[in-house]
């Protein structure tokens, strides 16, 4: 197992290098002068000073070498849109809000989704099942920004704050600020998880070992705990890992609507604003998370289902 993880980490480095290189050169082919992104053109001397400041006077390959070197020292560079603030500082500053919202949404979405899925499978073709299917369809078809605005309108204001986010003790305080965004962000995943779980449980229930378990005289609870739950989790893990990376690193829409000081907006706005250091930083950050969660997913497969052997080891 240890060797397997090491090998995967080696692949991770190679993948990251390819991503960094591809993003760097693609980004430099974007049309538009990064120091002239405003509608007003700066005088040439002023623009030239900015180009020198951000290194755009050097050829792109030269800049690439400098960038890789800085990166090895953990330096993402200064964001072009916020003078004086480095991309490192922005990520450090913004990530907690995104991560907290993401973790809450994932925990809530996963718990509720799995429970609904299991119930629906056991109560197949009853009104409970139809309700869960309805929630699933609604959750997938209602965009999160519509739900967010609805929540703000119906619940926000008198009961819960419409916008805002705890600013001190970012991980634990101000729970009431996080309720509406968490609901809005998790609704889609509740739908996805419950649908997947329902199908998966139904499939497991048809297996012979369930019949055996029943024949052994196990109670329903024991069957669910020991046989059904674990075997039906595999497809959930497959969709969970990429979702995890996406949600934890920030959602553009939810954060924008609820004014949450998270990372989400930087993915979009750094590209529109040609903020090169920030484009690189967010891409690297997101891909790192994504790859790590895929590695974790592979390891989790092995833990949940012994039939999947991650490292080719002999039994």
């Amino acid at each position: 197992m240890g060797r397997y993880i090491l090998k995967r980490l080696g692949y991770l480095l190679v993948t990251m290098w390819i991503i960094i290189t591809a993003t760097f050169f693609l980004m430099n082919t974007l049309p538009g002068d990064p120091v002239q992104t405003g509608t007003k053109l700066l005088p040439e001397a002023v623009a030239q000073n900015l180009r020198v400041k951000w290194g755009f006077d050097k050829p792109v390959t030269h800049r690439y070498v400098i960038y890789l070197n800085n990166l090895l020292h953990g330096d993402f560079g200064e964001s072009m849109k916020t003078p004086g603030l480095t991309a490192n500082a922005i990520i450090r500053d913004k990530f907690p809000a995104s991560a907290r919202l993401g973790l809450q949404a994932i925990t809530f979405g996963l718990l509720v989704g799995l429970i609904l899925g299991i119930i629906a499978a056991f109560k197949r073709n009853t009104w409970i099942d139809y309700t869960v299917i309805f929630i699933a369809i609604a959750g997938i078809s209602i965009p999160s920004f519509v739900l967010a605005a609805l929540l703000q309108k119906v619940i926000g204001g008198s009961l819960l704050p419409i916008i805002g986010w705890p600013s001190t003790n970012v991980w634990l305080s101000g729970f009431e600020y996080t309720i509406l965004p968490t609901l809005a962000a998790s609704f889609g995943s509740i739908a996805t998880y419950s649908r997947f779980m329902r199908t998966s449980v139904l499939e497991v229930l048809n297996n012979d070992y369930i019949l055996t378990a029943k024949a052994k005289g196990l109670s329903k609870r024991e069957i669910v705990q020991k046989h059904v739950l674990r075997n039906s989790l595999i497809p959930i893990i497959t969709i969970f890992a990429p979702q995890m990376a996406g949600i934890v690193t920030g959602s553009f829409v939810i954060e924008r609507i609820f004014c949450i000081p998270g990372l989400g907006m930087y993915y979009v706005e750094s590209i529109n604003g040609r903020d090169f250091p920030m484009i690189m930083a967010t891409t690297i950050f997101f891909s790192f998370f994504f790859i790590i969660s895929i590695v974790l997913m592979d390891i989790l497969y092995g833990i949940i289902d012994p039939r999947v052997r991650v490292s080719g080891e002999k039994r």
Partner: protein
Amino acid sequence: MKKRLLATIITLSIVLSVVLAGCGQNSASSGSGNTINLAFTGDPESFDSSKVAESAANTVIQETQEGLVRLGDKKIEPAGATKWEVSSDGLTWTFHLRDYTYSDGVKVKAQDFVYAVRRMFDPATACPSAGIFYCIKGGEDFLNGKGSVEDIGVKATDDNTLEITLKTPTPYFEQLANFVSILPLRQDVIEKAGVTYGTDPKAMVFSGPFVVDSWIRGSKIILKKNEKYWDAANVKLNEAVISIVPEQATQEQLFDSKGLDIIQDVKAEYVDKLKTKIDAGDITSLVGYYPSCSYVAFNNKDKDKIFTNAKIRKAFSLAIDREAYSQNVIKKDVPAYGFLPFGLNNGEKIYREAVEEPLKSMSGEDPKKLFEEGVAELGLNTSTPITVTFLQRTAASNNKTISEYLQDQWQKKLGVIVKIDTAADGATFNKSIQKGEYQVAVTGWGGDYNDPMTFMELFLTGSPNNSAFFDNERYNELVNAGAVDSNADKRLDMFREAEKILVADNAGIAPLTYNVKTTYMQSYVKGILVQAGGPAWELKNAYIEKK
């Protein structure tokens, strides 16, 4: 294995319960007393007055620093400087400073202004607005690495006297003196903070009516009254909470629940909803103008020749029904028959009130006839209809509406074929316009300071923002003379003639609308000043009458 799964579930539930236990603490309680709740759509870039050129940053900086002058109700008023004189040749401006201090009690000295001006022109600072101050002697040279810092025309004759020497007479220099780039800066504070100056309000000092108490990026900025401000007795607000609310719909919900006291730039649909509240007196509205104008830019150096002809350009301009455009198509703003918007002063007078809009007197001309004359002048082949390409800013629906309307008007009234090309995004659009790789497009201009020059200089030959590549000798002559003339009446005549050349006689561009700035506020907000240009609002004299 089973145990591990169990352990995972237990850990998860512990995490969840800890998270849930955090419930019930309110971290956003706003202070008591006179507090105003405001919103920006995005974070300021920084509070470093030498490095920013966007509205949110400018607004906060103007509220927290006291420069030479301050923009009062439509006119420049003495602030840090109590009075100033201009030499008879119009080149030397001497400002006399009052005795006032920063929030840490240190006196504001004339040397701090000298430092600020030198820092603005320093190539290492890369100040985006330095170009506006090219009128200061030696500034442009130092920026280009040619001159020395001592040659910049700014000096402190003593602690309270600042002398600024200009390259050419600039009658509107007092308007420029209100700009953030020449607010006083403390060398010791800036050197201590290094490159991070302007990102952390705790490491800054403030000389204005308010101080920045805290700034949580992406969330809110809290301004507190500056007790050390020289005119603190007249500042009634204790606190201003500026939330960062990018989504218009969220701002509306906050405004409805009185979580927001002022809302600007709202959509037409929301205005209808506000009507009943306005009638009931719960909300007051202020209608004003941004110093900005949106216009159709014709590429005067068109490679396909078509828009090099003044008659064709004029025909395209006259074919647009501007009333219908503003009322039915974009559903906002007011039709523009000239280039210079309302709310710009020429000396004491409002320019637009003194000068009739040039296109108003041209409504009698027939665009189709003009177009045919122009085509004949160019000797174009008329056996197939003439095709022009309109460059649309982005694929956003509002841009699409605009281009389709113009396409329809021109095709119907002139018999041309209008193809629509769409730029990938704003930056790509800007680049195509700046390089002249387009035929016709809609763009706009917002003034930087309150003088006709901020618009007129745009279309001088070779000006970097001359997106239409307009090139007219008489126009250049008039504008260059108007720039340096200190006689307001003479300037008015020169600008009147120049504007007529630009939009009517030569039709380098076709103005579309002047942008309307409507501010809605809860009726308990008093004393706030909303100007045409400059900051979003001026809070110095604002207060909240009991809610």
